């Protein structure tokens, strides 16, 4: 992806893939809750084909919930519409939520255990302690 600014923090597309299922005692561990202390909204180059190809790989619900929980869902629909490939308007909204909303500092929270994974300087720390493996 071509990004205009040099540095990027955790994007919601990345968040969509993260889970705490690898932890001992956690069955699902998804989606991770977000506690956002610092958010940044950046501008990145839009590519409709890219977005439409990414959409089927997403957990749409998790994406919407994550965006909503940090107040950046905009008017992104809670349900994924059909025939989105040709809907430029829609794709742009998805693009914005996926790639232009970034968490600089905050936490990711395991929905089952409540375990918090810090995000500092845009980097989530998912390293587990020995007893969590």
């Amino acid at each position, binding site marked *: 992806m071509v990004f205009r600014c040099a540095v990027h923090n955790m994007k919601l597309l990345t968040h969509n*893939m993260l889970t705490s299922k*690898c932890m001992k005692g956690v069955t699902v561990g998804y989606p991770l809750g977000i506690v956002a202390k610092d958010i940044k909204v950046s501008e990145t180059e839009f590519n409709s084909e890219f977005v439409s190809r990414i959409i089927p790989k997403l957990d749409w619900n998790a994406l919407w919930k994550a965006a909503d929980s940090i107040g950046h869902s905009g008017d992104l629909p809670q349900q994924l519409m059909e025939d989105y490939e040709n809907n430029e308007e829609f794709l742009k909204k998805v693009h914005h939520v996926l790639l232009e909303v970034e968490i600089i500092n905050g936490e990711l929270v395991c929905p089952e255990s409540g375990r918090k994974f810090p995000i500092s300087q845009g980097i989530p720390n998912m390293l587990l302690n020995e007893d969590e493996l």
Partner: protein
Amino acid sequence: MTGFATRKVVRKVKKLTSMLHRESGIECCEEPTKYLFIGNAGLTTGLQRECLVPHFTKYGIVDDVVMIPVPTVENKDWHNGPPGSVVLENFVNETEEEILLHCIDWGTSDSGQHLKHRRVIHYGYEFQYHNNNINKDEPLKDKIPEECSVLFDRLKQMGYITSCPDQLTINQYLPGQGIPPHIDTHSACEGTILSLSLGSSVIMEFKHRDGQSMSLLLPQRSMLIMSGEARYAWSHGITPRKTDIMPCPGGGLSVQNRGVRTSFTFRWTRKDKCICSYHLECDSYNEKESSEQNDAGATELEKLHVHKVYEDIAEHFSETRHKPWPNVLDFVQSFPKGSVLVDVGCGNGKYFGQNKDIYEIGCDSSWNLSSLCKDRGFQVFTCNCLALPLRNDSADACISIAVIHHLANENRRLKAVQEIVRVLRQEGMALIYVWAKNQEYNNKKSSYLKQNWHNRKSKCNKTNAHEPPVVNAEEEKSQTEKYSKFSESSSFSLPLHTNRTQFLHKDVLVPWKLKPQSQKLQTAEVRTFYRYYHVFEKQELEDLCLREKNVELVKSFYDQGNWCVIIKKK
């Protein structure tokens, strides 16, 4: 002489006389005395004593020629080698020497070959220089020539041997050629190795891992016997040069030109495991010993010798990550728009940014490296590769370059592969690179090895992924393999690898010398860090991946000292 020339000469004379005074206390004066100092001419410039004497006797009687001792050759004893070494002078006469040299058929023998540095031929079994081991599985058609039996009879008579060797390697060295220091792999052959020197004398260099070195004169037609400690614990080698500094029969030192030396090295192939007491250099012993750390041990070992080290060396390490490898680039660039690529053990994100159409996420256990990756504009998070916090079936592509060889037992290496496969989407593909035990393949040395030997002194811009550029060539030269235990609470008895040489063991600690400027410490000392590696044998990575049930092997290859696979999730 012009004015300029005289000034130059005067300057040079001044420099030499002050050096003489500094090194020996001898003062030069303007008036002639009966002592004449010849400067800028000595052993290292190749001036031979034999040249000097006739040159000056024209002018008067030469009482004596005295060489000012050079610190490195002072107090050297060329007549004694390490314990267990014996040189039998005049072992064969000139006629026998001729016969032996003539029995070699360089052209038509089974395994005659022309190595870059010297000519080599094997009889009985092939001795493989890439790992200093004997290929016992494929005995050669040609056995040791009959002409050699006189040597064995003689040695038996003298009481040095009781049976005949079954392996012979003949090396022919032209002046300027040599052989790098090595220890013949313990499990390859028995405790006695013989070396007959024909055609020319040479100085052989022995080194012990604790730093001791010895130079041993091997006169022409002498038989060297290496046994016990000399065979098991000292490396032997011949410096590639055209002359040797040698003791003169009458005393003093001289420079001898080398002639063409042909060595006959006889070995007894070993049928069983080595049971010597020189454990540190013993592959049989270490194979047994470094069998599998349990998980607790492995965790501790990786914590100390992988995770902590990368945190400490992150900046310097990142600086030395240069050109991405072509095969990895090809793989990354083969994925279509909208693909998701995960780099497990991404380091500073070396392989990101090469395909503008895909979404790349990196993860690494090192915060410092991840930070550098993020600063370069990429998505990254920290985690352990044994527990990837990623959803099942979420990645189209995965790469893991030079990562799983840092895992300290087989179960963990398998787990890392399983995690990668779990994260891959169906039909998704992964590329895995691990360091190979064999750094020379198809007779080509890896770029890691090529930095050794002649290339050391030249500036190396190309750096192998696992190596820092040479900090100080001289310093590296004197580095010998050392052994030490780490941490009182654990007992990691692992051999220390010598950089830019072949691997002798499968589980090793590899040094990384940290550049002083990059250090956060105040001292200017060069700190050495040790990273744990399990180096892979041929097939090993393939077999590991195929243990995971829904894996299909797409491609398997060797790339610059690494074993590599591309696998697909079925």
